[in-house]
């Protein structure tokens, strides 16, 4: 099956039905290995055992941003190419991205208390991450407010592209402003500052979270296609009655 064939919702459903069980199984396996490696990782010389929170916090932060990135590409698909599955992909990604952003904020808060002495501070990194969560909630609300899916898709696509400006702000906030949040330590010029004994489990957990994201996204897209079929059939039924 060519990738272009997946633009057809029926073919996409067949692809999703075949792929989701395999992706789900792989996700479970990588998570099991990742959690095992995370628990075996040594304590940090400064932060002690609280470094274990990093194995949840950092991947969820990445995936919160990846979710909005996926939605931004899908928004272009809706506005520019009018791809039939673009707004389905965007709508399906929003709650998943919001959940990972929430997880990032919760775990960050729980990590901040023992390390910084506070659960929350209005510094640029934390505030821009909170803005991302509010953007997610806004776009979900927009989808629910506008009844016609095609009109909702265009409005949500515009909001998504405007909101994408928050992604570089989150990434570079620690460089542009003085923040309590630490600077980049994984992807930075000169290499990572994290010891491989901690960095490798972090990457395995990131892979597991990424697999989870795409498994859930594929399943949520399948649900959205079915929901639209139900809506179409109900409209057909209503017009037949009237």
């Amino acid at each position, binding site marked *: 099956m060519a990738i272009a064939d997946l633009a057809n919702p*029926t073919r996409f459903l067949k692809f999703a*039905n075949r792929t989701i069980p395999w992706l789900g199984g792989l996700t479970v396996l990588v998570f099991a290995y990742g959690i095992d490696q995370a628990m075996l990782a040594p*304590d940090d010389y*400064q*932060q*002690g*055992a*609280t470094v*274990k*929170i990093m194995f*949840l*916090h950092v991947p*969820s932060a990445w995936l919160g941003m990846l979710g909005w990135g996926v939605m931004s590409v899908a928004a272009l698909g809706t506005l520019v190419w009018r791809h039939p599955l673009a707004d389905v992909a965007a709508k399906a990604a929003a*709650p*998943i991205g919001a*959940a990972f952003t*929430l*997880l990032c904020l*919760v*775990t960050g808060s*729980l*990590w901040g*208390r*023992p390390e910084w002495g506070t659960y929350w501070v209005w510094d640029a990194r934390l505030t821009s991450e909170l803005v991302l969560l509010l953007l997610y909630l806004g776009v979900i609300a927009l989808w629910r407010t506008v009844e016609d899916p095609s009109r909702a898709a265009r409005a949500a696509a515009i909001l998504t592209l405007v909101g994408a400006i928050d992604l570089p702000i989150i990434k570079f906030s620690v460089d542009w402003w003085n923040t309590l949040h630490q600077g980049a330590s994984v992807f930075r010029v000169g290499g990572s500052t994290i010891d491989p004994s901690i960095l490798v489990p972090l990457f395995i957990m990131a892979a597991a979270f990424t697999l*989870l994201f795409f498994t*859930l996204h594929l*399943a*949520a897209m*399948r*649900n959205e296609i*079915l*929901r639209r*079929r*139900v809506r*179409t*059939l*109900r409209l*057909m*039924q209503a017009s*037949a009655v009237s």
Partner: protein
Amino acid sequence: MNTVNHMGFIVASYAAAAAIVGVLIAWVTLDYRMQRLRLADLEMRGVTRRSAPVRPEPALDKAKEKA
């Protein structure tokens, strides 16, 4: 660092992750069942898409049985 004092924060983080991921998985799974049941219900009433197959898909058969 006092590991014992901070164990609560670590456990709370992993519990929060399990809860949020669990809710996500439950939402996707329940939503799928709901949409399949709604489709099966409509098809039982004779409301079908023009491009729908003549014979219902096996998944819909199961949903109809449950309904």
